[in-house]
């Protein structure tokens, strides 16, 4: 193996509106090497790849600092086209394929082979006729290179997802002079056997001298296929490792490794009694078909009175669980809640039976942005439970006085900063919006409160307030809470137990003080954790 690097990115820094997302990162890849780029969500992997690919999002926000050397030459890549010309290809996480087209048409998209016609002689090249035979031959060659036996004239629509991924790869291979290929979490959507084939294909491609940057969370795949890796954490460069010199546990530690800071003061002493046999909610073989957050068979027990955290990397299915319980996405499996069954196919069934939900999509699902705070807080309770209504003869009317009073109380109790109950919810800051969402959930007086990503997009001060509020509700009112969050740190500072989801399945339930390596491995789906951990 040649020791000279085909790609050398050094001292890369990038700021988005004053927020430093990359701080002096370096990435070096040798020709014909499979190099893993690892890190949690938000570690800066995609920003680094966007820089390498010259994406407009980088250059519209003030460019970046640092140098890129490609093939021994210092280069400035300011648009994706330039990157392609240099020989950098990318296999996207979301397929850039057209389902209605054949495999050949997709592979040759934008690079069709044509022959002259009478019209093109008169009116220009765009009227040249497609040479379908030559295109098919090229496509066949690319498909054979990666060993995909699919017919080149088959339509992409209806193919298994794995095949689409391979077609996408074939397209990149077909481009002439490709030197570096980026795989952006290619195995996330694949079945196990498809993923194995993909890894095999990556080896074949690398053996032809093409360098591969492999972005993934899955540590076992990294161990299996890569030669070396770069680990990023919070926008900083952690280490460049040769795969043969390291272990899965070490990688996990490097990815997670950070101090647990206390986000929540102990509001008051813990007087709760949580019993293992007093279950509020059980999930059995729970599946949710939420695009991008699929849940593939989860069994989970929730004890009355506890705060259960659900963590895991983005796209692994943790957000799917609450959305499935509430019936917002097609779900199957058995949900037992406080002695009765919840039918996930019936929208509103969970709400009616006493589950309140604060959605991760605050501005989309959570709030009526152009309605008053009062409307937002009272709306669900009014619809589901018939609160804030008065009967005048045969008609029911909105009891605005009662609602106003309740909203005032909530504003005081949760310290919502606003001009009054009439202010539009859309005008509030993120943290205050989140409090409105919580107020609405509390108004329902639920037996179970499910909060999804409660601190997403709100500043650190507000974050603390929201978390303390949750803790207070749990301690004072004995409310059982499920909290879904991408921020492990947050979960560890608040929850009694933390369930980690990877690839739509539960990989472990841990105590908040379990080690970084344990969490890291579970998040990468490597080991089956101790499910009865208490």
């Amino acid at each position, binding site marked *: 193996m040649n020791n000279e690097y085909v790609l050398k990115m050094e001292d890369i820094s990038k700021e988005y509106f004053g927020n430093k997302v990359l701080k002096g990162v370096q990435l070096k890849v040798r020709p014909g090497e499979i190099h893993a780029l690892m890190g949690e969500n938000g570690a800066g992997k995609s920003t680094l790849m966007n820089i390498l690919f010259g994406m407009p999002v980088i250059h519209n926000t003030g460019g970046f600092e640092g140098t890129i050397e490609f093939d021994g030459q210092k280069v400035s890549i300011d648009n*994706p*086209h330039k990157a392609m010309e240099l020989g950098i290809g990318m296999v996207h996480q979301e397929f*850039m*394929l*057209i*389902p*209605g*087209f054949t495999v050949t*048409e997709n592979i040759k*998209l*934008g*690079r*069709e082979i*044509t*022959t*002259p*016609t*009478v*019209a*093109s*002689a008169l009116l220009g*090249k*765009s*009227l*040249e*006729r*497609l040479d*379908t035979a030559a295109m098919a031959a090229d496509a066949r060659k690319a498909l054979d290179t990666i060993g995909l036996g699919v017919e080149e004239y088959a339509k992409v629509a209806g193919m*298994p997802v794995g095949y689409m991924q391979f077609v996408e790869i074939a397209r990149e291979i077909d481009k002439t002079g490709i030197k570096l290929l980026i795989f952006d979490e290619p195995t996330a959507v694949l079945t196990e056997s498809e993923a194995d084939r993909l890894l095999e294909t990556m080896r074949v491609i690398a053996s032809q001298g093409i360098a591969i940057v492999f972005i993934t969370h899955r540590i076992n795949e990294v161990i299996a296929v890569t030669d070396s890796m770069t680990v990023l954490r919070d926008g900083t460069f952690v280490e460049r490792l040769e795969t043969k010199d390291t272990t899965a546990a070490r990688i996990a530690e490097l990815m997670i490794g950070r101090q647990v800071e206390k986000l929540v003061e102990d509001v008051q002493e813990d007087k709760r009694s949580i019993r293992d046999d007093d279950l509020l909610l059980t999930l059995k073989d729970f599946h949710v*078909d939420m695009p991008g957050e699929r849940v593939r068979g989860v069994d989970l027990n929730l004890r009355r009175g506890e705060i259960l955290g659900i963590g895991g990397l983005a796209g692994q299915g943790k957000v799917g669980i609450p959305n499935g319980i509430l019936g917002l996405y*097609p779900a199957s499996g058995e949900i037992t809640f406080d002695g009765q069954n919840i039918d996930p196919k019936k929208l509103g069934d969970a709400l009616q039976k006493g589950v309140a939900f604060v959605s991760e999509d605050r501005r989309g699902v959570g709030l009526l942005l152009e309605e008053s705070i009062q409307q937002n807080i009272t709306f669900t309770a009014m619809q589901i439970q018939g609160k804030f209504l008065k009967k005048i003869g045969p008609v029911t009317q909105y009891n605005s006085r009662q609602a106003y009073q309740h909203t005032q109380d909530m504003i005081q109790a949760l310290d919502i900063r606003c001009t009054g109950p009439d202010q539009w919810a859309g005008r509030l800051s993120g943290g205050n919006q989140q409090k409105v969402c919580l107020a609405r959930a509390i108004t329902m007086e639920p037996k179970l409160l499910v909060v999804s990503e409660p601190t997403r997009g709100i500043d650190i001060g507000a974050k603390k307030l929201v978390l303390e509020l949750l803790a207070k509700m749990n301690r004072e009112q004995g409310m059982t809470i499920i909290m879904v969050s991408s921020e492990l740190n947050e979960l560890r500072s608040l929850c009694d137990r933390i369930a980690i989801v990877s690839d739509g399945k539960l990989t472990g339930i841990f105590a908040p003080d379990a080690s970084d390596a344990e969490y890291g491995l579970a998040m990468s789906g490597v080991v089956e954790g101790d499910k009865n951990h208490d």
Partner: protein
Amino acid sequence: MSNSPLNKRSWQDALKQFLFENKVIILFVGLSILCMAIAQTNVSYIASEVFSRFGRNACLVLALIIPCLAGLGMNFGIVVGAIAAQISIFWVVHWGFTGITGFVLCVLMTTPLAILFGWLQGMLFNKTKGSEMITGLVLGFFAAGLYRLFVLYIMGGVIPYDDPNLLDRGFGLRNAFDLTGNLKYALDDISCLTTFTVLSVVMLLSTLVVYFYGKKTGAESKPIAGKLIGWGALLVFSIVARYIPFLNEMLGGTRLLLSDAAVLGGLALILWGAMLLVKNRPGKADPMFAKALKWVILGAVLVISAMIPVVSKVYRAVRLPAMTLAVICLYVLFNSWILNTRLGQNMRTVGQNRSVATSAGINVDKIRIIATCISTVLAAWGQLIFLQNLGTFNTVQQQDNVGLYSVAAILVGGANVQKATNKQAIIGVFLFHTLFVVAPLAATQLVGDSAISEYIRMFFSYGVIAVSLAMHAWKLAGNSKKKA
């Protein structure tokens, strides 16, 4: 859901799928038969009506295919093209040109106007991505309003227009514009033999152009001898046949009997299919083989049908305009040809997914404008063909229903807002106009009032559009359920 391969389906499933996919067509075939049964009219009359309407409308409907595939939905905006055609007719008639000369002049005048209109329309569509259909519909109303102003005031009021068609008050055109004696049947009256001559000369020339251009650019050129011989033979035939009384009587007149056309067309199809069969030997797992076989069988059916007395009686009642049919064929060929060019491929890409198209380096906005222009120009020519056949038209509101009827027709043929083919357009024109002819007859038979026919047609066209859009939505819902 199982991933079983498609070819292992049972025939029941296959039949079910066939019925489901063709449900729109099946519905309207059923309706037609029902209406015919109620109306109890002479089949020969219906056939001749339907064929004459086919010749009139087919081109307008075929103009809808390109924008549909480019993701613009059903282009209700072809009204604008029709307006361009009508404006050009006012002047050509005024200058006193008649016959085919006048018609060609109309085409020459209409084209730049239609390109201009199409370009403006395309820019508007680019500003309203995702709601092109409603934009096109409203644009049609808007353009019709401007056109009324033009016809009723500007003609003669601002632009001097000294013509008997002008109202006595000195500005504004009369309500009916008569084409008798100038443009009526300008295209329809060209005989089959002349059509052959023109066609073969054009094809010979273009074959040579491609050959020499290909040579100049250094691309490897395919042998052209076969093409030259074929088209040359047609040219010789079209000239010689004039001196053979039997052939001249059959092909030299202004119209072609459907019975003759069926035999000739059938023979041509058999010949074409046989040629394909020889080229692509059977046994190979080649889709071309099945296709060729289909042509041969279709040709044989046509020839045989012409020999059955009952059918042949109907065939003899229908007289076809040869050149107009040839133009319709050219429209069909143009559509399939352009889709096989780089431009066409780009259009389809844009139609399927704009963001993928952009990432493949395609200028999406430009492609959409080109597609709109093509549609507008084709529609403008189509309106010229329509009007020369009609012979007289309503100066003010002739264009109003062009978009509506054309869209209804193509939808009846099984097209939807995302996909339309030549076949669907052709089938759609036949089906829609069959119903258009027989539904009022049936209504008259039932109610006993002939005035009802206009209401029936209006109700019917909008109904067709609503039903086929609903059925398309049903199909989409079915698909997404299957995926889940």
